[in-house]
């Protein structure tokens, strides 16, 4: 089980910038959410490989929904 990144708020998925299997560094932007005309970048907290990415552009997320897993 790697690092699980979840949504802090109800939002739309505006852009997905990585794919499953990508190597990412801490601080890299994985996904950009949009809510109330505000774009909210979601960053990797640790370096690793994206092992799960259950979101697509246009998805509507609730607070707590899984965005990505990094192992």
């Amino acid at each position, binding site marked *: 089980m790697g690092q699980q990144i979840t949504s802090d708020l109800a939002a739309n998925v505006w*852009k997905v*910038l990585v794919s499953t299997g990508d190597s990412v560094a801490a601080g890299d932007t994985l996904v950009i959410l949009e*809510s*109330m005309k505000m774009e909210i970048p979601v960053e990797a907290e640790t370096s690793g490989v994206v092992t799960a990415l259950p979101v697509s552009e246009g998805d509507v997320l609730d607070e707590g929904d899984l965005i990505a897993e990094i192992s």
Partner: protein
Amino acid sequence: MMESLLVANRGEIARRIIRTARRLGLRTIAVYSDADADLPFVREADEAVELGPAAPAESYRNAEKVLAAARRTGAEAVHPGYGFLSENAGFARAVQEAGLVWVGPAPDVIELMGDKINARNAVAAAGVPVAPGTPEPVAGEAAALEAAAAIGYPLMVKAAAGGGGMGMAVAHDEDDLRKQYAAVSGFAERLFGDPAILLERYYAGARHVEVQILGLADGAVIALGERNCSVQRRNQKLVEESPSPCLDPDLREQMLTAAVQVGKAVGYRNAGTVECLVYGEPGAQGFVFLEMNTRLQVEHPVTEAVWGVDLVEEQLRVAAGEPPSMDLTTLRPRGHAIEFRVNAEDPVRFLPGPGTINAWNEPSGDGIRVDSAYGQGNRVTPAYDSLMAKLVVHAGTREDALARARDALATFTIAGPKQNLPFFTELLDEPEFADGSYSTALVARMRATPRKGS
């Protein structure tokens, strides 16, 4: 003066424009999306036309639908407010071509000042300082390093296609620039599909100060003081005040003169704002032009409070080809005003939080103005920005305005959505805000410091 006005906007600014238009005897027409059907601005207009679904592209940003509403209701003029279609030159042209009065500057001027490079050149030609930088995207890392040597460090590495504060990083030296160039360019390509990079001088600890100008019907351009908008999160303003504390009086004069020069150079009519960065500390300050906003600003009420004018009335008069309501050249600023943007967002991380308003009690009294979008029972939807209301306080001195703000904030109650009122109370206790010495770095610094009790 025209007899009817369509307000091509929503929420607090639609309400505020309707208020002045009604006072002047104009028939007011609101347009609204189905998400906004129950909001006060729809009720307060003489007529209201539903545009369609909540998505801005299908309602407030849809020029054809807005124009059709104007034609259907016999509106003589269109006021665009801010955001949406307000700086859309094509829409301004379409309004004029339909034989209606556009309450704003000429479409060509909107176009000119909306293009970063052309605006910068026009302003420089008017003798106003601009930040050193690359007017065109740099062609690769080697060209970036060469340009940086001429501009000097630190500098801002910006995605040419960027916006909303994304795709920007500061580089302090050559190694840093190599790293940030690759990072910002890669990010911009993934996000915007365009890796082009611009470089600009970065001014650490700068203050965001803007000048309100008004181009009158007879061609005169006047400045109505300045506003300090340095309390920002994610490059978006939260608090604005006028006059600006910690601004050298001679620099203020230079900035007002420069803003008028810019207005005259482009033949500006109507209300506009010249945004600048002020760098350096009092006694050794300078300024550079940032951009021009060719519309009414969110923070216009602080100027109205200090100068005793109704900017929307003056906008309507200019658009109608009439002289101003009074001799504006003899006006002098009076006292100090501060505006707080009350947003549906949490006060710690500033993440938006829509919801239904279960309780809404706004402060009132001498020197207190609240321009609100909502009332009790309304739902703040995720479809639009998070601004719920603007609290504006005015008093004889900054110290008294701060005291008035403290009292007003203590009596402002909103229940339901998340709201940032507690942040403003915290801000009033910040020594840098209290003494007026703060820069645009203030909010980030506040949030980087562990707070009491956390």
